[in-house]
Protein backbone atom coordinates (compact mmCIF):
# COMPACT_ATOMS: atom_id res chain seq x y z
CA UNK A 1 0.00 0.00 0.00
CA UNK A 2 2.82 2.41 0.84
CA UNK A 3 4.78 3.95 -1.99
CA UNK A 4 7.99 3.64 -0.02
CA UNK A 5 8.58 3.16 3.63
CA UNK A 6 9.01 6.27 5.67
CA UNK A 7 12.70 7.02 6.07
CA UNK A 8 12.59 8.25 9.64
CA UNK A 9 15.32 10.80 9.12
CA UNK A 10 15.52 14.30 10.44
CA UNK A 11 14.68 16.56 7.50
CA UNK A 12 17.23 19.22 6.63
CA UNK A 13 16.15 22.84 7.09
CA UNK A 14 12.91 21.89 8.84
CA UNK A 15 11.65 25.47 8.82
CA UNK A 16 10.61 25.12 5.21
CA UNK A 17 7.96 22.56 6.21
CA UNK A 18 6.65 24.87 8.88
CA UNK A 19 6.62 27.61 6.24
CA UNK A 20 4.60 25.30 3.99
CA UNK A 21 2.00 24.90 6.72
CA UNK A 22 1.98 28.64 7.43
CA UNK A 23 1.36 29.39 3.76
CA UNK A 24 -1.52 26.94 3.73
CA UNK A 25 -2.89 28.66 6.80
CA UNK A 26 -2.55 32.10 5.19
CA UNK A 27 -4.22 30.90 2.00
CA UNK A 28 -7.40 30.42 4.03
CA UNK A 29 -7.35 34.17 4.55
CA UNK A 30 -5.98 34.99 1.13
CA UNK A 31 -8.63 37.53 0.20
CA UNK A 32 -8.49 39.20 3.59
CA UNK A 33 -4.74 39.57 3.21
CA UNK A 34 -5.12 40.98 -0.30
CA UNK A 35 -7.89 43.36 0.78
CA UNK A 36 -5.81 44.65 3.67
CA UNK A 37 -2.80 45.03 1.39
CA UNK A 38 -4.84 47.17 -1.00
CA UNK A 39 -7.10 49.13 1.33
CA UNK A 40 -4.41 50.07 3.80
CA UNK A 41 -2.36 52.13 1.31
CA UNK A 42 -5.46 53.53 -0.36
CA UNK A 43 -6.82 54.91 2.89
CA UNK A 44 -3.49 56.42 3.88
CA UNK A 45 -2.82 57.91 0.50
CA UNK A 46 -6.25 59.44 0.17
CA UNK A 47 -6.47 60.87 3.66
CA UNK A 48 -2.95 61.82 4.53
CA UNK A 49 -1.12 61.85 1.22
CA UNK A 50 -3.71 63.91 -0.63
CA UNK A 51 -5.35 65.68 2.28
CA UNK A 52 -2.31 66.71 4.25
CA UNK A 53 -0.22 66.84 1.08
CA UNK A 54 -2.53 69.40 -0.50
CA UNK A 55 -2.49 71.45 2.67
CA UNK A 56 1.28 71.44 2.63
CA UNK A 57 1.75 72.28 -1.03
CA UNK A 58 -0.84 75.05 -0.76
CA UNK A 59 1.09 76.57 2.12
CA UNK A 60 4.70 75.87 1.25
CA UNK A 61 4.62 75.04 -2.45
CA UNK A 62 5.10 71.81 -4.40
CA UNK A 63 8.62 71.27 -3.06
CA UNK A 64 6.81 70.76 0.22
CA UNK A 65 9.09 68.92 2.61
CA UNK A 66 12.74 68.05 2.28
CA UNK A 67 12.74 69.50 -1.24
CA UNK A 68 10.22 66.99 -2.62
CA UNK A 69 6.47 66.59 -2.85
CA UNK A 70 4.75 65.37 0.29
CA UNK A 71 3.81 62.06 -1.32
CA UNK A 72 7.40 61.37 -2.31
CA UNK A 73 8.43 62.31 1.21
CA UNK A 74 6.07 59.90 2.97
CA UNK A 75 6.21 57.04 0.44
CA UNK A 76 9.25 55.25 1.96
CA UNK A 77 7.76 55.65 5.44
CA UNK A 78 4.38 54.26 4.40
CA UNK A 79 6.02 51.30 2.69
CA UNK A 80 8.14 50.52 5.72
CA UNK A 81 5.19 50.86 8.08
CA UNK A 82 3.09 48.48 6.01
CA UNK A 83 5.96 46.00 6.05
CA UNK A 84 6.24 46.31 9.81
CA UNK A 85 2.51 45.94 10.33
CA UNK A 86 2.26 42.90 8.03
CA UNK A 87 5.24 41.18 9.59
CA UNK A 88 3.95 41.83 13.07
CA UNK A 89 0.46 40.43 12.42
CA UNK A 90 1.81 37.33 10.80
CA UNK A 91 4.25 36.72 13.64
CA UNK A 92 2.14 37.56 16.69
CA UNK A 93 -1.10 35.72 15.91
CA UNK A 94 0.44 32.42 14.80
CA UNK A 95 2.71 32.50 17.85
CA UNK A 96 -0.19 33.05 20.25
CA UNK A 97 -2.10 30.30 18.49
CA UNK A 98 0.86 27.97 18.44
CA UNK A 99 1.67 28.21 22.12
CA UNK A 100 -1.67 28.98 23.62
CA UNK A 101 -4.90 28.94 21.62
CA UNK A 102 -4.64 25.84 19.43
CA UNK A 103 -1.28 24.65 20.74
CA UNK A 104 -0.23 23.69 17.22
CA UNK A 105 3.47 24.24 18.00
CA UNK A 106 3.33 21.33 20.42
CA UNK A 107 2.08 19.13 17.60
CA UNK A 108 4.86 20.33 15.31
CA UNK A 109 7.39 19.71 18.04
CA UNK A 110 6.37 16.06 18.42
CA UNK A 111 7.87 15.51 14.97
CA UNK A 112 11.57 16.03 14.21
CA UNK A 113 10.93 19.80 14.13
CA UNK A 114 12.71 21.81 16.81
CA UNK A 115 11.75 25.07 18.48
CA UNK A 116 14.17 26.91 16.20
CA UNK A 117 12.65 25.29 13.10
CA UNK A 118 9.18 26.32 14.20
CA UNK A 119 10.22 29.88 15.03
CA UNK A 120 12.08 30.08 11.72
CA UNK A 121 9.09 28.79 9.78
CA UNK A 122 6.73 31.27 11.40
CA UNK A 123 9.18 34.06 10.66
CA UNK A 124 9.53 33.03 7.02
CA UNK A 125 5.74 32.89 6.73
CA UNK A 126 5.56 36.44 8.01
CA UNK A 127 8.16 37.45 5.44
CA UNK A 128 6.06 36.01 2.62
CA UNK A 129 3.14 38.12 3.79
CA UNK A 130 5.41 41.16 4.15
CA UNK A 131 6.78 40.86 0.64
CA UNK A 132 3.24 40.55 -0.68
CA UNK A 133 2.01 43.61 1.24
CA UNK A 134 4.98 45.72 0.28
CA UNK A 135 4.64 44.63 -3.34
CA UNK A 136 1.00 45.64 -3.54
CA UNK A 137 1.69 48.84 -1.63
CA UNK A 138 4.48 49.93 -3.93
CA UNK A 139 2.35 49.36 -7.02
CA UNK A 140 -0.34 51.60 -5.53
CA UNK A 141 2.24 54.21 -4.56
CA UNK A 142 3.49 54.12 -8.10
CA UNK A 143 -0.01 54.64 -9.48
CA UNK A 144 -0.40 57.63 -7.19
CA UNK A 145 2.85 59.04 -8.53
CA UNK A 146 4.64 58.66 -5.22
CA UNK A 147 7.41 56.48 -6.63
CA UNK A 148 8.56 59.04 -9.14
CA UNK A 149 12.32 59.20 -8.57
CA UNK A 150 14.55 56.81 -10.57
CA UNK A 151 15.66 55.10 -7.37
CA UNK A 152 12.25 54.76 -5.80
CA UNK A 153 12.31 50.99 -6.13
CA UNK A 154 15.04 50.91 -3.46
CA UNK A 155 12.41 51.71 -0.87
CA UNK A 156 10.99 48.20 -1.40
CA UNK A 157 13.91 46.10 -0.10
CA UNK A 158 14.49 48.64 2.67
CA UNK A 159 10.87 48.28 3.80
CA UNK A 160 11.12 44.48 3.73
CA UNK A 161 14.29 44.72 5.79
CA UNK A 162 12.44 46.85 8.34
CA UNK A 163 9.58 44.31 8.43
CA UNK A 164 12.07 41.51 8.99
CA UNK A 165 13.85 43.24 11.84
CA UNK A 166 10.68 44.29 13.64
CA UNK A 167 9.07 40.91 12.93
CA UNK A 168 12.06 39.16 14.51
CA UNK A 169 11.79 41.24 17.67
CA UNK A 170 8.04 40.70 17.92
CA UNK A 171 8.52 36.96 17.40
CA UNK A 172 10.85 36.94 20.38
CA UNK A 173 8.48 39.10 22.40
CA UNK A 174 5.39 37.02 21.58
CA UNK A 175 7.14 33.78 22.49
CA UNK A 176 7.24 34.93 26.13
CA UNK A 177 3.60 35.94 26.29
CA UNK A 178 1.15 34.00 28.43
CA UNK A 179 -1.46 36.71 28.95
CA UNK A 180 -2.37 37.90 25.50
CA UNK A 181 -4.84 40.62 26.54
CA UNK A 182 -2.13 42.54 28.30
CA UNK A 183 0.29 41.83 25.49
CA UNK A 184 -1.97 43.27 22.82
CA UNK A 185 -2.63 46.35 24.92
CA UNK A 186 1.06 46.96 25.48
CA UNK A 187 1.98 46.38 21.88
CA UNK A 188 -0.86 48.47 20.48
CA UNK A 189 -0.72 51.43 22.82
CA UNK A 190 2.91 51.64 23.80
CA UNK A 191 4.86 50.20 20.90
CA UNK A 192 3.08 50.37 17.58
CA UNK A 193 1.11 53.56 18.22
CA UNK A 194 4.05 55.69 19.34
CA UNK A 195 6.24 54.16 16.68
CA UNK A 196 4.04 55.43 13.88
CA UNK A 197 3.64 58.82 15.47
CA UNK A 198 7.23 59.47 16.45
CA UNK A 199 9.30 57.95 13.67
CA UNK A 200 9.41 60.89 11.31
CA UNK A 201 6.74 59.20 9.24
CA UNK A 202 4.67 62.26 8.46
CA UNK A 203 7.22 65.02 9.11
CA UNK A 204 11.00 65.07 9.65
CA UNK A 205 11.98 63.70 13.03
CA UNK A 206 14.06 66.78 13.87
CA UNK A 207 10.86 68.83 13.91
CA UNK A 208 10.20 67.19 17.28
CA UNK A 209 11.74 68.28 20.59
CA UNK A 210 14.90 66.32 21.21
CA UNK A 211 13.36 64.27 24.06
CA UNK A 212 10.70 62.88 21.74
CA UNK A 213 13.23 62.14 19.00
CA UNK A 214 14.36 59.33 21.25
CA UNK A 215 11.34 57.27 20.12
CA UNK A 216 12.52 57.57 16.57
CA UNK A 217 15.97 56.42 17.44
CA UNK A 218 14.77 53.13 18.89
CA UNK A 219 12.22 52.61 16.14
CA UNK A 220 13.09 50.49 13.12
CA UNK A 221 10.52 52.52 11.24
CA UNK A 222 12.57 55.69 11.57
CA UNK A 223 15.78 53.97 10.52
CA UNK A 224 14.06 52.44 7.50
CA UNK A 225 12.39 55.73 6.63
CA UNK A 226 15.67 57.63 6.71
CA UNK A 227 17.35 55.02 4.55
CA UNK A 228 14.39 54.94 2.20
CA UNK A 229 14.38 58.72 1.80
CA UNK A 230 18.08 58.70 1.15
CA UNK A 231 17.74 55.96 -1.44
CA UNK A 232 14.68 57.27 -3.22
CA UNK A 233 15.27 60.99 -3.49
CA UNK A 234 18.67 61.70 -1.98
CA UNK A 235 17.54 62.97 1.42
CA UNK A 236 20.82 64.11 2.92
CA UNK A 237 22.31 61.87 5.60
CA UNK A 238 25.92 61.18 6.41
CA UNK A 239 27.68 57.96 5.43
CA UNK A 240 28.06 57.12 9.09
CA UNK A 241 24.32 57.40 9.63
CA UNK A 242 23.67 55.05 6.72
CA UNK A 243 25.80 52.53 8.54
CA UNK A 244 23.96 53.16 11.80
CA UNK A 245 20.55 52.65 10.18
CA UNK A 246 21.57 49.39 8.56
CA UNK A 247 23.35 48.16 11.65
CA UNK A 248 20.42 48.98 13.92
CA UNK A 249 17.98 46.94 11.85
CA UNK A 250 20.48 44.12 11.36
CA UNK A 251 21.04 43.87 15.11
CA UNK A 252 17.28 43.80 15.77
CA UNK A 253 16.91 41.05 13.20
CA UNK A 254 19.72 38.87 14.48
CA UNK A 255 19.13 39.36 18.19
CA UNK A 256 15.36 38.98 17.79
CA UNK A 257 15.70 35.70 15.93
CA UNK A 258 18.29 34.37 18.33
CA UNK A 259 16.13 35.04 21.36
CA UNK A 260 13.05 33.67 19.61
CA UNK A 261 14.80 30.45 18.59
CA UNK A 262 15.95 29.89 22.15
CA UNK A 263 12.68 30.78 23.84
CA UNK A 264 10.57 28.67 21.45
CA UNK A 265 12.71 25.67 22.28
CA UNK A 266 12.55 26.39 25.99
CA UNK A 267 8.83 26.92 26.13
CA UNK A 268 8.08 23.83 24.05
CA UNK A 269 10.15 21.52 26.24
CA UNK A 270 9.23 22.90 29.63
Amino acid at each position, binding site marked *: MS*VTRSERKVPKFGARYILEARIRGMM*KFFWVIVAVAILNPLLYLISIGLGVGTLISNNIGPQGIDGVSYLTFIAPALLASSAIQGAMDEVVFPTMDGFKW*GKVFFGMNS*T*PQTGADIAGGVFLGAMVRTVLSVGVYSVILYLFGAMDSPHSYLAVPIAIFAGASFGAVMLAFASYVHNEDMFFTIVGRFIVGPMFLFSGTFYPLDTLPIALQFFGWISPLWHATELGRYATYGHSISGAMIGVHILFMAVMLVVGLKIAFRQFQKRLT*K
Partner: protein
Amino acid sequence: MSENLIEVRGLTKKYGDFVAVNGIDFHVQKSESFGFLGPNGAGKSTTMRIIAATSQRTSGEVSVLGKDPEIQGPQIRAHLGVVPQQDNLDAQLTVSENLYIYGRYFGLPSKFIKSKINDLLEFAQLEEKRDVKVEALSGGMKRRLTIARSLVSEPDILILDEPTTGLDPQARHILWDRLFRLKEDGITLLITTHYMDEAEQLCDRLMVMDKGSIMAEGSPAALIKKYSTKEVLEVRFGSDRNAEMAPAMQQLCERIEVLPDRILLYSDDAEAVLESIVAGGNHPNTSLVRRSSLEDVFLRLTGRSLIE
Protein backbone atom coordinates in the same frame (compact mmCIF):
# COMPACT_ATOMS: atom_id res chain seq x y z
CA MET B 1 17.64 -11.60 24.13
CA SER B 2 15.12 -8.90 23.35
CA GLU B 3 16.39 -5.34 23.25
CA ASN B 4 15.18 -2.49 25.40
CA LEU B 5 13.89 0.27 23.17
CA ILE B 6 13.28 2.49 26.13
CA GLU B 7 15.33 2.59 29.31
CA VAL B 8 14.62 4.92 32.17
CA ARG B 9 16.68 5.16 35.36
CA GLY B 10 16.09 7.47 38.28
CA LEU B 11 13.94 9.79 36.19
CA THR B 12 12.87 12.90 38.08
CA LYS B 13 10.93 15.87 36.79
CA LYS B 14 10.26 18.97 38.81
CA TYR B 15 8.12 21.96 37.94
CA GLY B 16 9.67 24.58 40.19
CA ASP B 17 9.66 22.94 43.61
CA PHE B 18 6.91 20.51 42.75
CA VAL B 19 8.08 16.97 42.04
CA ALA B 20 5.89 15.57 39.27
CA VAL B 21 7.98 12.44 38.66
CA ASN B 22 10.04 11.10 41.49
CA GLY B 23 13.00 8.92 40.52
CA ILE B 24 11.30 6.19 38.51
CA ASP B 25 12.92 3.23 36.73
CA PHE B 26 11.45 1.12 33.96
CA HIS B 27 12.19 -0.25 30.55
CA VAL B 28 10.19 -1.21 27.49
CA GLN B 29 11.20 -3.88 25.01
CA LYS B 30 10.76 -3.91 21.28
CA SER B 31 7.24 -4.82 20.16
CA GLU B 32 6.01 -4.67 23.69
CA SER B 33 2.83 -2.90 24.59
CA PHE B 34 3.42 -1.00 27.80
CA GLY B 35 0.73 0.76 29.80
CA PHE B 36 0.71 3.55 32.36
CA LEU B 37 -2.08 3.53 34.92
CA GLY B 38 -2.61 6.05 37.64
CA PRO B 39 -4.96 8.65 39.04
CA ASN B 40 -5.01 12.27 37.79
CA GLY B 41 -1.74 14.04 38.41
CA ALA B 42 0.24 10.81 38.88
CA GLY B 43 2.87 11.94 36.38
CA LYS B 44 1.91 9.73 33.44
CA SER B 45 1.79 12.45 30.79
CA THR B 46 4.93 14.06 32.14
CA THR B 47 6.81 10.76 31.84
CA MET B 48 5.48 10.20 28.34
CA ARG B 49 6.50 13.67 27.19
CA ILE B 50 10.02 13.10 28.42
CA ILE B 51 10.24 9.82 26.51
CA ALA B 52 8.76 11.55 23.46
CA ALA B 53 11.65 14.06 23.64
CA THR B 54 9.32 17.00 24.11
CA SER B 55 10.04 17.78 27.75
CA GLN B 56 13.30 18.24 29.58
CA ARG B 57 13.92 16.02 32.56
CA THR B 58 15.34 17.37 35.80
CA SER B 59 17.59 14.39 36.48
CA GLY B 60 18.05 10.70 35.78
CA GLU B 61 18.90 8.77 32.65
CA VAL B 62 16.66 8.18 29.68
CA SER B 63 17.46 6.28 26.55
CA VAL B 64 15.04 5.88 23.65
CA LEU B 65 16.20 3.79 20.69
CA GLY B 66 19.66 4.01 22.21
CA LYS B 67 19.63 7.81 22.14
CA ASP B 68 19.33 10.47 24.81
CA PRO B 69 16.20 12.55 24.15
CA GLU B 70 17.91 15.63 25.54
CA ILE B 71 20.71 15.38 22.97
CA GLN B 72 19.12 13.68 19.98
CA GLY B 73 15.49 14.74 20.32
CA PRO B 74 14.79 15.24 16.62
CA GLN B 75 16.45 11.93 15.70
CA ILE B 76 14.27 10.13 18.25
CA ARG B 77 11.11 11.96 17.26
CA ALA B 78 11.65 10.90 13.64
CA HIS B 79 10.75 7.38 14.82
CA LEU B 80 7.80 8.25 17.03
CA GLY B 81 4.10 8.67 16.56
CA VAL B 82 2.54 10.73 19.32
CA VAL B 83 -1.07 11.14 20.41
CA PRO B 84 -1.01 13.85 23.07
CA GLN B 85 -3.60 13.97 25.82
CA GLN B 86 -4.87 17.26 24.44
CA ASP B 87 -5.46 17.52 20.69
CA ASN B 88 -3.32 20.08 18.91
CA LEU B 89 -4.59 19.89 15.36
CA ASP B 90 -4.47 22.94 13.11
CA ALA B 91 -8.08 24.15 13.36
CA GLN B 92 -7.85 26.37 10.28
CA LEU B 93 -6.81 23.54 7.98
CA THR B 94 -8.95 20.71 6.67
CA VAL B 95 -8.84 17.11 7.86
CA SER B 96 -6.71 15.90 4.96
CA GLU B 97 -4.46 18.96 5.13
CA ASN B 98 -3.75 18.19 8.76
CA LEU B 99 -2.59 14.70 7.85
CA TYR B 100 -0.59 16.09 4.97
CA ILE B 101 1.30 18.84 6.78
CA TYR B 102 2.03 16.56 9.70
CA GLY B 103 3.70 14.12 7.33
CA ARG B 104 5.60 17.04 5.87
CA TYR B 105 7.00 17.91 9.29
CA PHE B 106 8.75 14.55 9.10
CA GLY B 107 10.17 15.63 5.76
CA LEU B 108 8.18 12.93 3.95
CA PRO B 109 7.67 13.34 0.20
CA SER B 110 4.23 14.60 -0.89
CA LYS B 111 3.61 11.50 -2.96
CA PHE B 112 4.28 9.20 -0.05
CA ILE B 113 1.93 11.10 2.25
CA LYS B 114 -0.83 11.33 -0.34
CA SER B 115 -0.68 7.57 -0.84
CA LYS B 116 -1.39 7.10 2.86
CA ILE B 117 -4.14 9.66 3.39
CA ASN B 118 -7.03 7.54 2.12
CA ASP B 119 -6.12 4.66 4.38
CA LEU B 120 -5.74 6.95 7.38
CA LEU B 121 -9.06 8.65 6.68
CA GLU B 122 -10.75 5.29 6.45
CA PHE B 123 -9.21 4.18 9.73
CA ALA B 124 -10.37 7.41 11.37
CA GLN B 125 -13.80 7.04 9.70
CA LEU B 126 -13.43 10.55 8.39
CA GLU B 127 -13.64 9.97 4.62
CA GLU B 128 -16.70 12.20 4.40
CA LYS B 129 -15.00 14.94 6.37
CA ARG B 130 -11.91 14.95 4.23
CA ASP B 131 -12.23 18.56 3.10
CA VAL B 132 -13.89 19.93 6.21
CA LYS B 133 -12.00 22.32 8.45
CA VAL B 134 -10.95 20.73 11.71
CA GLU B 135 -12.71 23.40 13.74
CA ALA B 136 -15.99 21.95 12.46
CA LEU B 137 -15.33 18.42 13.75
CA SER B 138 -16.83 16.90 16.89
CA GLY B 139 -14.55 16.16 19.84
CA GLY B 140 -14.39 12.43 19.09
CA MET B 141 -13.68 13.08 15.41
CA LYS B 142 -10.77 15.34 16.34
CA ARG B 143 -9.49 12.60 18.60
CA ARG B 144 -9.68 10.07 15.78
CA LEU B 145 -7.87 12.45 13.46
CA THR B 146 -5.12 12.98 16.03
CA ILE B 147 -4.68 9.22 16.28
CA ALA B 148 -4.61 8.81 12.49
CA ARG B 149 -2.12 11.67 12.26
CA SER B 150 0.31 9.86 14.55
CA LEU B 151 0.50 7.00 12.05
CA VAL B 152 1.35 9.02 8.95
CA SER B 153 5.09 8.64 9.47
CA GLU B 154 4.92 4.86 10.09
CA PRO B 155 6.46 5.15 13.55
CA ASP B 156 8.50 2.48 15.32
CA ILE B 157 7.16 3.55 18.70
CA LEU B 158 3.63 4.80 19.18
CA ILE B 159 2.98 6.93 22.25
CA LEU B 160 -0.70 7.28 23.10
CA ASP B 161 -1.79 9.46 26.00
CA GLU B 162 -5.38 8.51 26.82
CA PRO B 163 -6.13 7.80 23.16
CA THR B 164 -9.71 6.66 23.58
CA THR B 165 -10.97 9.44 25.83
CA GLY B 166 -14.00 10.86 24.05
CA LEU B 167 -14.37 7.97 21.60
CA ASP B 168 -17.60 6.06 21.18
CA PRO B 169 -17.46 2.27 21.73
CA GLN B 170 -17.27 1.48 18.04
CA ALA B 171 -14.39 3.87 17.42
CA ARG B 172 -12.65 2.48 20.45
CA HIS B 173 -12.85 -1.07 19.14
CA ILE B 174 -11.59 0.00 15.75
CA LEU B 175 -8.61 1.57 17.48
CA TRP B 176 -7.93 -1.51 19.58
CA ASP B 177 -8.03 -3.61 16.46
CA ARG B 178 -5.60 -1.32 14.68
CA LEU B 179 -3.24 -1.26 17.65
CA PHE B 180 -3.23 -5.06 17.79
CA ARG B 181 -2.23 -5.20 14.17
CA LEU B 182 0.48 -2.60 14.61
CA LYS B 183 1.86 -4.60 17.50
CA GLU B 184 1.94 -7.69 15.34
CA ASP B 185 3.95 -5.70 12.84
CA GLY B 186 6.55 -5.12 15.55
CA ILE B 187 5.61 -1.63 16.64
CA THR B 188 6.18 -0.75 20.27
CA LEU B 189 3.24 0.84 22.09
CA LEU B 190 3.17 3.12 25.10
CA ILE B 191 -0.32 3.80 26.35
CA THR B 192 -1.87 5.66 29.24
CA THR B 193 -5.50 5.05 29.95
CA HIS B 194 -8.09 5.36 32.66
CA TYR B 195 -10.03 2.42 31.25
CA MET B 196 -9.07 -0.82 32.93
CA ASP B 197 -10.64 -2.96 30.24
CA GLU B 198 -8.49 -1.17 27.71
CA ALA B 199 -5.35 -1.73 29.76
CA GLU B 200 -6.18 -5.42 30.17
CA GLN B 201 -6.91 -5.80 26.47
CA LEU B 202 -3.98 -3.90 25.09
CA CYS B 203 -1.05 -4.06 27.45
CA ASP B 204 1.52 -6.81 27.87
CA ARG B 205 2.88 -5.02 30.84
CA LEU B 206 1.62 -2.20 33.04
CA MET B 207 3.02 0.29 35.44
CA VAL B 208 0.81 1.77 38.14
CA MET B 209 1.91 5.27 39.09
CA ASP B 210 0.79 7.53 41.89
CA LYS B 211 2.21 10.86 43.02
CA GLY B 212 5.19 10.57 40.73
CA SER B 213 6.27 7.11 41.87
CA ILE B 214 5.78 3.60 40.56
CA MET B 215 3.49 1.58 42.81
CA ALA B 216 3.68 -1.69 40.91
CA GLU B 217 4.68 -3.15 37.59
CA GLY B 218 3.92 -6.35 35.73
CA SER B 219 1.52 -8.07 33.34
CA PRO B 220 -2.19 -7.52 34.00
CA ALA B 221 -2.55 -11.13 35.18
CA ALA B 222 0.51 -10.95 37.44
CA LEU B 223 -0.66 -7.69 38.98
CA ILE B 224 -4.08 -9.13 39.71
CA LYS B 225 -2.49 -12.19 41.23
CA LYS B 226 -0.13 -10.20 43.37
CA TYR B 227 -2.39 -7.42 44.56
CA SER B 228 -5.80 -9.01 44.66
CA THR B 229 -7.58 -12.25 45.44
CA LYS B 230 -9.03 -14.53 42.83
CA GLU B 231 -12.56 -13.35 43.39
CA VAL B 232 -14.44 -10.38 44.73
CA LEU B 233 -17.83 -10.14 46.35
CA GLU B 234 -19.65 -6.85 45.88
CA VAL B 235 -22.49 -6.19 48.30
CA ARG B 236 -24.76 -3.19 48.66
CA PHE B 237 -26.72 -2.39 51.76
CA GLY B 238 -27.71 1.09 50.65
CA SER B 239 -25.39 4.03 50.85
CA ASP B 240 -26.27 4.95 54.43
CA ARG B 241 -25.70 1.45 55.81
CA ASN B 242 -22.57 0.31 53.92
CA ALA B 243 -20.12 1.83 56.38
CA GLU B 244 -21.93 0.52 59.45
CA MET B 245 -22.14 -3.06 58.08
CA ALA B 246 -18.45 -3.23 57.14
CA PRO B 247 -16.84 -4.10 60.53
CA ALA B 248 -19.00 -7.19 60.93
CA MET B 249 -17.74 -8.60 57.66
CA GLN B 250 -14.05 -7.81 58.10
CA GLN B 251 -13.17 -11.31 59.38
CA LEU B 252 -14.95 -13.11 56.57
CA CYS B 253 -12.50 -12.08 53.88
CA GLU B 254 -8.83 -11.24 53.23
CA ARG B 255 -9.43 -7.58 52.56
CA ILE B 256 -12.33 -5.19 52.51
CA GLU B 257 -12.90 -1.92 50.67
CA VAL B 258 -15.81 0.27 51.61
CA LEU B 259 -16.89 2.50 48.76
CA PRO B 260 -19.72 5.00 49.05
CA ASP B 261 -22.13 2.82 47.08
CA ARG B 262 -20.92 -0.71 47.87
CA ILE B 263 -18.57 -2.92 49.85
CA LEU B 264 -15.93 -5.03 48.14
CA LEU B 265 -14.91 -8.22 49.90
CA TYR B 266 -11.77 -9.90 48.63
CA SER B 267 -11.48 -13.66 48.91
CA ASP B 268 -10.48 -16.63 46.79
CA ASP B 269 -13.93 -18.06 47.39
CA ALA B 270 -16.39 -15.19 47.24
CA GLU B 271 -19.43 -17.46 47.13
CA ALA B 272 -18.52 -18.82 50.56
CA VAL B 273 -18.19 -15.28 51.93
CA LEU B 274 -21.66 -14.43 50.70
CA GLU B 275 -23.06 -17.58 52.35
CA SER B 276 -21.49 -16.64 55.69
CA ILE B 277 -22.94 -13.14 55.48
CA VAL B 278 -26.41 -14.46 54.85
CA ALA B 279 -25.94 -17.14 57.55
CA GLY B 280 -25.13 -14.30 59.97
CA GLY B 281 -28.56 -12.85 59.34
CA ASN B 282 -27.54 -9.97 57.07
CA HIS B 283 -29.20 -9.60 53.74
CA PRO B 284 -27.58 -7.22 51.27
CA ASN B 285 -29.86 -5.44 48.81
CA THR B 286 -27.78 -6.76 45.96
CA SER B 287 -24.71 -8.96 45.71
CA LEU B 288 -22.35 -9.90 42.92
CA VAL B 289 -19.53 -12.41 42.75
CA ARG B 290 -16.92 -11.65 40.10
CA ARG B 291 -13.28 -12.27 39.26
CA SER B 292 -10.72 -9.72 40.33
CA SER B 293 -9.76 -7.16 37.72
CA LEU B 294 -7.21 -4.41 37.31
CA GLU B 295 -9.78 -2.14 38.87
CA ASP B 296 -9.18 -3.92 42.15
CA VAL B 297 -5.42 -3.66 41.80
CA PHE B 298 -5.77 0.04 41.14
CA LEU B 299 -8.00 0.52 44.14
CA ARG B 300 -5.61 -1.36 46.37
CA LEU B 301 -2.54 0.52 45.20
CA THR B 302 -3.86 4.03 44.95
CA GLY B 303 -6.78 3.92 47.36
CA ARG B 304 -8.91 5.38 44.63
CA SER B 305 -11.67 3.92 42.55
CA LEU B 306 -11.87 4.71 38.88
CA ILE B 307 -15.57 4.10 38.58
CA GLU B 308 -17.06 7.03 40.38
